């Protein structure tokens, strides 16, 4: 993955062009005695600026697909292209930089660092860029403002409600202005009211900033709010 370093963190691919291309991707998990196919010959293209949701029963390969899109898991077969760059290696400094500049993650269980304050959590992606501490702080507060949590900047994650934690996680995902946000069941741990709030933020991000969003969900109601819904079953795309 050598071309990644040439991409600017704020550059946007023109709307309508392919932001994510998954071609013939398979993923097998092997143990000594058994091989499990999590994904089979998957093909999927996500356009720039698109908000795509992925649904399917547990164990159908939704999260595996999302991880492969996010370059945090490696396909057994097939190719992945992100923002026009074909991924050829899943290790090393270049891929870390590419993840840092192009991708933002939102997890079902938030994955905030409890020992850091809200604003320090949001700053995290910027720590791995050459951004001065003042600029980091400014951008982080701006991201918190965006999700309506600027008044909680100095709080710690365990002082927040589930919805607030997820908003911090969104702020962390957008602070580096990535082209793509990958959200793995972002409303899964929240009640419907909080879930709606989070969904509204994601929709706003998508429409206002043009960020490409891929969201894994179990919630049909949330999925219907997105541009397109892809259904998986047993590692295969069924719609």
């Amino acid at each position, binding site marked *: 993955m050598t071309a990644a370093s040439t991409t600017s963190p704020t550059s946007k691919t023109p709307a309508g062009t392919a932001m994510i291309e998954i071609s013939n991707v398979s993923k097998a998990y092997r143990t000594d005695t058994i091989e499990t196919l999590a994904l089979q010959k998957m093909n999927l293209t996500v356009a720039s600026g698109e908000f795509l949701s992925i649904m399917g029963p547990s164990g159908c390969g939704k999260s595996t697909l999302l991880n492969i899109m996010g370059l945090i898991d490696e396909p057994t077969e097939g190719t992945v292209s992100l923002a026009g760059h074909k991924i050829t290696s899943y290790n090393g400094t270049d891929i870390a*930089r590419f993840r840092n500049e192009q991708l933002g993650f939102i997890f079902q269980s938030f994955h905030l660092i409890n020992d850091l304050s809200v604003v320090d959590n949001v700053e*995290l992606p910027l720590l791995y860029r050459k951004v001065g501490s003042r600029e980091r702080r400014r951008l982080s507060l701006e991201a918190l403002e965006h999700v309506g949590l600027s008044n909680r900047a100095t709080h710690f994650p365990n002082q927040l409600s589930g919805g607030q934690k997820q908003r911090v996680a969104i702020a962390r995902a957008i602070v580096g202005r990535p082209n793509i946000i990958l959200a793995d069941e972002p409303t899964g741990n929240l009640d419907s009211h909080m879930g709606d709030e989070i969904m509204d933020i994601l929709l706003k991000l998508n429409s206002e900033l043009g960020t490409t969003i891929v969201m894994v969900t179990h919630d049909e109601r949330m999925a219907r709010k997105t541009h397109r819904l892809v259904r998986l079953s047993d590692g295969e795309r069924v719609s």
Partner: protein
Amino acid sequence: MFKNYLLLSLKVLKRKPFYTFISLFGISFTLTILMLITSLFDATLGNNQPLTHRDRLVIAPSLERTRTETDTILAVDTLQLKDGTFRLDSTYTYEDDIVSTSNGPMSYNFADKNLRNFENVEHYAFYSDGNHIDGYLDGRKYSFQAYYTTASYWDVFDFSFQFGGPFYQEDEDQATKVVVITDKSAEAYFGVADASVIGQDMMLGDEVFRVRGIIDRPLTDSPLFAGDVYMPCTTLNNRDLSSTELYGGFSAVFLAPTPGQRSALQEEINFMSQNFEMPPDSYHDALELFNSPFIEGYAQGLLNERDPDKAMRLLFIPIVLLLLLFVALPLLNLINLNIGRVHERKSEIGVRKAFGANARDILYQFIFENLVLTFIGGAIGLLFALGLISYINKNDILGITRLSYSTEVFVYFLLVIIFFGFLSGILPAYRMSRANVAESLR
């Protein structure tokens, strides 16, 4: 970035007080002991006054006379002859050589005649140690360890004079009754160790000596300078000085011009002793003048071992092994604790990697955190060590030897801390830095 790491390190330490306590206890206890050992080494073998030139010293504490004879065994047999008579038959069997030895310090006369003409020498001194002398003042008696030395003794050893100065060649030549005393002796005898003591008289034995100087008590109790009072050797009674025996109460110490010339000096000394002509009436037929550099001499004296190389091996190999073992145990324990600690933070590592941290960032973060922990442990250990050193010195727990606290010790200490922090952190950090991100976030 480092602020973030530091902040996180401190928070992680606060989050797990028991883990932090165990880790800090292990680190600080180990470092305290290591610092005491280093300090003891520095006090005993370090470059401290009066041993600033220790790497140029050759010490000749004693000499040995030997006589080598071939062992002969006489066997007497009784033979019965055919005619019924008996005959005695004797057989001599020659066995290995038997070496008879006799050793001890040399006489002043021997040193004076044979040890003054070496080429590779800058200064040399003869001194008589181990003399007990009583001091008297106002009806009270004080016991002192007395050293009788040549004036050049003060050139060989760079004592730190608090007040006054040494005695000189003319004092030696004229057998002037002057004395240089340690600060501790001054305090014991005069009640104070200040400038007022210089020029005062001390009743030592049955003679009066005038105080010429007050020296700092050396850090260690080396037999080279274990005296409380030092007087010109010529003030000893005449019998001690003029005895023509080889043995007496004196030892010699030489200062080579450079450390490199030390072995040449030793060769000269050995050449002298190998070619020494034994007195015609002597039972012994050869002479050896023991001589060795300072540290080798220390090892030989401590272990009573003649071979300097063997003495060094016997002294230092067990010490190094023990130290390694002593460091290894808490180190392994810390590595184990760290593996558990890092494992608990799997999800954090996953998040960091997902948001752009590479393996090197994770490695640096955990090593940095570990260094913070070891530096805190080190600071506690340092405070404990300083307290213990002060307690040991104040109460003379190690006899004359006083532990030192020097920049050198502090540098060793810092190195040990860095070594500790780095080694105990690198393995767990390396393992986690290679962890699969998806796996870590599961």
